[in-house]
């Protein structure tokens, strides 16, 4: 090692860190501030549309975990009627292959990402929990028809101003109480 440049390299680095001292932090204080996830997010808990589902079972074959349980019986006009549609979200890897494989648009990924459960049994989702509801919305992953309903994704690239929460310039004193408090 030689200080051939008389420590100019070190000084340059110090200047850069000093410059960053006056830049706004990029931290997002998660439970208090929430960013909008991507419209195509592969969130937890599939959304299942019972009226569209014909019980063909393509999704069960597409699942690489063998995770979707589908039980049907023949109803009138020789159509399948779904008795049981069950999925263990604790074993699901959220790859989205079942959604892609569904030929009748009867499945969609969910947008939610706060689905921690206290018991493993609660992670097994049945027909009711998978159906569309107020809280349980489909994402636009492979289902572009749902894209318009979802908020725009907040990107760090645009300083997260659009769609997401604004970053204040001096966030030292920023303490908002989130819904968890």
């Amino acid at each position, binding site marked *: 090692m030689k*200080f051939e440049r008389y*420590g100019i390299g070190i000084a340059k680095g110090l200047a850069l860190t000093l410059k960053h001292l006056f830049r706004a932090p990029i931290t997002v204080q998660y439970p208090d501030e929430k960013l909008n996830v991507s419209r195509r997010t592969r969130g937890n808990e599939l959304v299942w549309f019972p009226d569209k589902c014909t019980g063909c079972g393509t999704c069960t074959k597409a699942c690489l975990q063998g995770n979707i349980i589908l039980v049907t019986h023949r109803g009138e006009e020789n159509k399948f009627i779904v008795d049981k549609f069950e999925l263990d979200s604790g074993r699901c890897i959220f790859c989205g292959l079942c959604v892609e494989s569904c030929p009748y648009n009867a499945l969609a990924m969910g947008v939610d990402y706060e689905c921690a459960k206290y018991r493993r049994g609660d992670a097994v989702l049945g027909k009711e929990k998978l159906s569309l509801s107020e809280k349980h919305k489909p994402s636009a992953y492979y289902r572009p028809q749902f894209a318009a309903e979802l908020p725009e994704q907040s990107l760090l690239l645009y300083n997260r101003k659009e769609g997401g929460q604004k970053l204040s310039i001096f966030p*030292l004193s920023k303490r908002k109480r989130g819904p968890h408090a």
Partner: protein
Amino acid sequence: MTLLDQFQLILKSQNWPDWAVYLVPALVGIIIIISVVLTVVIVYIWWERRLISRFQIRLGPNRCGPEGIFQPIATAVKILLKEDIVPEKADKLIHFIAPITVFVPILLIFAVVPFGEGAILADLNVGIVYVIAISSISVIGIFMAAWASGNKYSFISGMRSIAQMVSYEIPVVLSIVGIALVVGSFSMLKIVEAQNIPFILLQPLGFLIFFLGSLAEMNRSPFDLLEADSEIVAGYHIEYSGMKFAMFYLGEYGVALAYAGIITTLFLSGWQGPLLPPVIWFLIKVMMVFSVIVWIRSTLPRFRVDQLTAFAWKFMLPLAVINLVLIAIEVLVIPANLQWTMVLINFGFAAVLILLWSKLFTLGGGRVEV
């Protein structure tokens, strides 16, 4: 006349017995200093975490209390509640003594740090020598901890600590002698009083050497080889938990505070300053020095152990010696009222010497044939 002496005089005039006249003011002083030091250390920990996070465009802890000021207290409570684990293969006694050996000398340093005019516990006439002597003891503590843990990483850290401390004591002492030459005394109070011009201007090279040396002494980046978490995980305190770990943790920041105080005293004209009370000036300067240390930590990578020692012996030691000779000549030749010429000469010499040495010296080491 320090505050302690005045207190003693007051007690004497109240006809207290002799032993009480000496004991009571000393105890009061010690208690005040320890509580001040521990409070400032807690502020330090908070300040470092907040500041380094801003250097790294994050927020840092801001949940506990306003701006996260109680975060170090929460950390301390957490650490104190933890189980005290002693490894089976450890040397139990030394493992127990080591944190104390590290922590106590650091507190002892504050006996001679002048917080304000007369606000000093013991105005020793060899004050700065006392600092050097006492602060070396904690190296033994570190080595004891490293050795007694029976861990291989901490063993490496212990070896590194000895090499590092031995190397950096010498340039540090030599740069202090330069100050003693100008002041004519080792007393901390006299050194502060002598600084009409802060010695950072009068002896820029001495300041540089002392600052880098003290970075090494307090194991701060880029000389934080003892704790190099990417290499030897946590170094000497890898096998410590609970209260004992807290001692190391406080010691680490305590020594940073102590050296920031000494740098302030020696080079930044101590408590002197306009308008504000002396203690406030002192704390402001200490905080500034500490902020620079944090700034350096946030930027620089770490030396390797052979480069570290080579830097001390090949770069800092020769410069320190030349600096000393230079100061000695200047003290002889230049009359005391022409100190500003000395500033100019010293800045010129510092620049020339650094440029010259940057060209001359190489850090040796590298691959060893095995």
